[in-house]
C-alpha cells in the first residue's frame, strides 16, 4: 500500500504527535472545566496544565501518518468506529457499531452503469487489486458541526470512471446504498425515503480528492464506517459521502439525494462545507473537532479550497448550497 498524505507537504510542517491531547485527557480536562464553571476565570489555566500523552489505542490497526496536512492529529480508531451517523442501522450514533457488527461486507459487488461505454459489476476485491488503494488522511466535517480527521484507505473515483468510460451525455454520477431492511434495521423506519442515494457533478466525481474508500486505519473498512465500499468527498458535508454503495450510475440529469428530498431548504445538492452559508440547526461557522473542548473555526471547503474552488467558479454558493 502506498502512502499519500494528500496534499503533500513537507514532514517538517507536521505537528508531532506529542503536541496533542489524548481523548481521555480531554475528558478529564473537560471534567475539571465543568467543575470550575463557577470559577470560570481559572478554567483556561486548568487546560494548559494537562500533560500530553500517547494516543495509541491497543485495538487500533497501525496508521501510517499521524496528522493531516494541516498538522491536526488523526482521531482514534475507537472514536471513528463508535460515533457513526448511519441511519440504515440506527439514528443513535453510538449504537451503529453494535447493530452493524454482523453486517456482511465481503464479498461486495458494485454495479457501475448508465451512460457509460463499459458497464460492469465489480467486486470490491477486483477494485482493490486493480486500483491499489492508498492511505488518504482527510478531515470529515459533519453538517451537525462536529468533525474528525480520518485515515482512509481507498482509490480515487476517477480511476474507476475512466475504466467504464462515461459517454458525452453523462453529466452527473448517482450513488445508491444497499437496500436490505433485514440486515439494516433502520431501513424499517417509514420516516426516510430508502434507499439512501447521493450524487456528484461529473467534474466533482473526477476530482482527485474524491475517494472510494475500501479501508480505514490501514485495515479493512468496518461495516459501521460504510463497508463494503463508500464514497469520501472531503470538501462536502459528511452526508454526501454515501456508505455501503451497491450502485453507481452515470446520468444526464441532476440526481435526487436523500437529505435534499427530506428537507430541501436545509440540505442542497452541493452541500460544500461553507462557514458563510448558515444552517437553521447547526453553526456552520464553527465546529467541534472530536476530542477537543473548544470550538474551532470551520474552513472554506473544509480546508480544501485551494484544490476545489475552481470547480465552482462563477457559481453563487449561497444559492447553490
Amino acid at each position, binding site marked *: 500500500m502506498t502512502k499519500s498524505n494528500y496534499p503533500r507537504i513537507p514532514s517538517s510542517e507536521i505537528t508531532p504527535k506529542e503536541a496533542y491531547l489524548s*481523548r*481521555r485527557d480531554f*475528558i478529564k480536562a*473537560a*471534567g475539571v*472545566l*465543568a467543575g470550575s*464553571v463557577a470559577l*470560570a476565570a481559572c478554567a483556561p489555566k486548568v487546560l494548559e496544565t494537562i500533560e500530553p500523552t500517547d494516543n495509541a489505542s491497543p485495538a487500533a490497526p497501525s496508521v501510517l501518518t499521524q496528522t493531516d496536512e494541516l498538522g491536526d492529529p488523526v*482521531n482514534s480508531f*475507537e*472514536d471513528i468506529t*463508535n*460515533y457513526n451517523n448511519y*441511519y440504515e442501522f440506527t*439514528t443513535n*450514533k*453510538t449504537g451503529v457499531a453494535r447493530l452493524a457488527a454482523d453486517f456482511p461486507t465481503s464479498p461486495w459487488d458494485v454495479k457501475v452503469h448508465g451512460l457509460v461505454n463499459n458497464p460492469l459489476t465489480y467486486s470490491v476485491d477486483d477494485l482493490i487489486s486493480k486500483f491499489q488503494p492508498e492511505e488518504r488522511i482527510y478531515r470529515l466535517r459533519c453538517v*451537525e458541526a*462536529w468533525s474528525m480527521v480520518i485515515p482512509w484507505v481507498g482509490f480515487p473515483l476517477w480511476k474507476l470512471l475512466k475504466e467504464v468510460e462515461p459517454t458525452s451525455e453523462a453529466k452527473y454520477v448517482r450513488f445508491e446504498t444497499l437496500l436490505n431492511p433485514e440486515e439494516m434495521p433502520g431501513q424499517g*423506519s417509514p*420516516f*426516510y*425515503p430508502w434507499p439512501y442515494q447521493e450524487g456528484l457533478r461529473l467534474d466533482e466525481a473526477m476530482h482527485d480528492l474524491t475517494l472510494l474508500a475500501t479501508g480505514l486505519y490501514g485495515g479493512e473498512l468496518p461495516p459501521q464506517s460504510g463497508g463494503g465500499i463508500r464514497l469520501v468527498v472531503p470538501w462536502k458535508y459528511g452526508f454526501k459521502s454515501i456508505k455501503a454503495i451497491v450502485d453507481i450510475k452515470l446520468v444526464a440529469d441532476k440526481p435526487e439525494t436523500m437529505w435534499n*428530498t*427530506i*428537507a430541501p431548504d*436545509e440540505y442542497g445538492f452541493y452541500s460544500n462545507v461553507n462557514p458563510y452559508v*448558515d444552517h*437553521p*440547526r447547526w*453553526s456552520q*461557522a*464553527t465546529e*467541534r473537532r*472530536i*476530542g477537543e*473542548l*473548544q*470550538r474551532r473555526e470551520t474552513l472554506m471547503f473544509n480546508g480544501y479550497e485551494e484544490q476545489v474552488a475552481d470547480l465552482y467558479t462563477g457559481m453563487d454558493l449561497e444559492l447553490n448550497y
Partner: protein
Amino acid sequence: MRMPRLTPLQIVVHIAGWLPLVLLVHGFYTDQLTANPIQAIEQRTGIQALTFLLFSLACTPVASIFGWKELTQRRKALGLYGFLYAALHVITFFAIDYGLDLEAVWRDVWNKSYIIIGAIAFLLLLPLAVTSLKYWMKRLGRNWKRLHKLVYIISPLVVVHFLLVVKGSLTQLQGNIYQPLLYGSIAALLLILRIPKIKQALINLRSRLGTWNRTRHAAPTADK
C-alpha cells in the same frame, strides 16, 4: 433535628430526580458519553428537563381523574427537577459548548430559531422556579397560580425547540422526528385533559365505573 417522614411516592420522585444526574456524571468520568460528550450532555439534560416538566404537568389531571390526591403535592418537586436539568442544559450550552464566547452565541442565535425558542422557554421557567419558595407562594397569593400557568406555554415551546433541533422535517413527516413527536403528543394530551368539559367527562366516567364495580362486587353478598 427530626427527619421528615417521606412517603413512598416522595422517595420515588427524589430518586428519579437525581438518578439522571448521577448517571450523567458517572458516564462523564467513565468516558461513556460518546466521542462527543458535550453534545451528549446537551441532549440528555434537554430530554430530562422536558420529561420532568411533563411529569409535573401530568400530576393535576392524573390526580383528579384517578383520585390519587398525593400527586398534586409532588408536582412542585417534579417541576423543580425539570428546572434543574433545564439549567444544566443552558449552562452546558453557553459555558462549555460555546466556552462563554458570547460573540459566537450571538452570531448563531439570529438564524437558529431553536435557540431563540429554547431561550424564551427557559426565561419563562426561571420565575416559576424562583417563586416555588413558600414565601413567594404566600406573597403572590392568587397571582401565584396565574403565574404558574405559564407552564402551559413553556411545555409546547420546549416541544417546538426539540422539533426544530432534530434532523428532519415535520411538514414532510420525515427524518429523526419520532422522539419529539412522542413528547409533543404527551404534552398535547396533558393540556387537553385540562379543558374543563373533557376533564369533567373523564371524572364522571371514572365515578360511573367505580359505582359499577362496587355494585358488581356487592351483588353476590346481597343475594345471600
